[in-house]
């Protein structure tokens, strides 16, 4: 039910995983040839990040920040170490073979190329 998913996204919790997850902040923008998704993931490393695209659902998930070194106690916390989970539904206008991901300074930038059929086409009038 991709349409339902657009209206009600994962809400930071996935059915298969009973552990509470958080939903990272993200932005989506569109150009003529691609969609660009920017996800804020401070403290997340490449190895602790998983990106999948299945059945029209792009999922970005992983563990939260690193565990605290021994002997270090928190006096005040404003950030969360909880695992994160973001599911975005898309229709078939994305070429799933051409998804490009870059993680830099805690920001994940995804570029999803539009499939040829989704690009604007000019139709000549004869």
């Amino acid at each position, binding site marked *: 039910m991709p349409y339902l998913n657009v209206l009600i996204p994962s809400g930071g919790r996935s059915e298969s995983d009973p552990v509470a997850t958080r939903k990272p902040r993200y932005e989506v923008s569109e150009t003529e040839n691609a969609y660009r998704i920017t996800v804020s993931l401070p403290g997340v490393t490449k190895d602790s990040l998983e990106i999948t695209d299945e059945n029209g659902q792009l999922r970005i998930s992983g563990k939260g920040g690193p565990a605290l070194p021994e002997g270090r106690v928190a006096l005040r916390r404003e950030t969360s170490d909880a695992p994160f989970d973001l599911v975005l539904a*898309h229709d078939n206008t994305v070429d799933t073979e051409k998804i490009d991901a870059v993680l830099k300074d805690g920001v994940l930038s995804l570029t999803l190329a539009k499939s040829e059929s989704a690009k604007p086409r000019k139709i000549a009038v004869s």
Partner: protein
Amino acid sequence: MRFIKFNQTNGRSASPVPGFGGRVSQQGLENELDWLFGTALTGFAGLSRGGQFPVDLFEDKENTYVRAELPGVASDAISVEIVDGALSIQASRKASSGEGNESFARLVNIADEVQADKVSASYENGVLTVTLPRKEQAKPRKINVSVN
């Protein structure tokens, strides 16, 4: 076209209940709800809300640590200073709209027993960690109790 997209509205804080009196798309409302839930659970969901960023405070036997989430900020765009017993963190990054810069600042009160001249900072994966060593006498000392 069903791909999730929305226009990032920056005036969200000005109108906490959007959509009344104006047209709001489904995606906009979804985003709004996400934000409301996000702030309810974490306080600060991330950067760009009022120019502040979330900060954690830790300590161990030797040091106090201030950890700040600054995603998307280049390490040379961060300035860390000790001013009048407070730690001042300032940062800027290119605005997500692509025009101009966004700047962020936060002042964290630190205890007097910090050795201000030995403070160090590191930045990795969008997270700034400032290490504030405590003065010798401020460290916990073990006192032997002699019982007569």
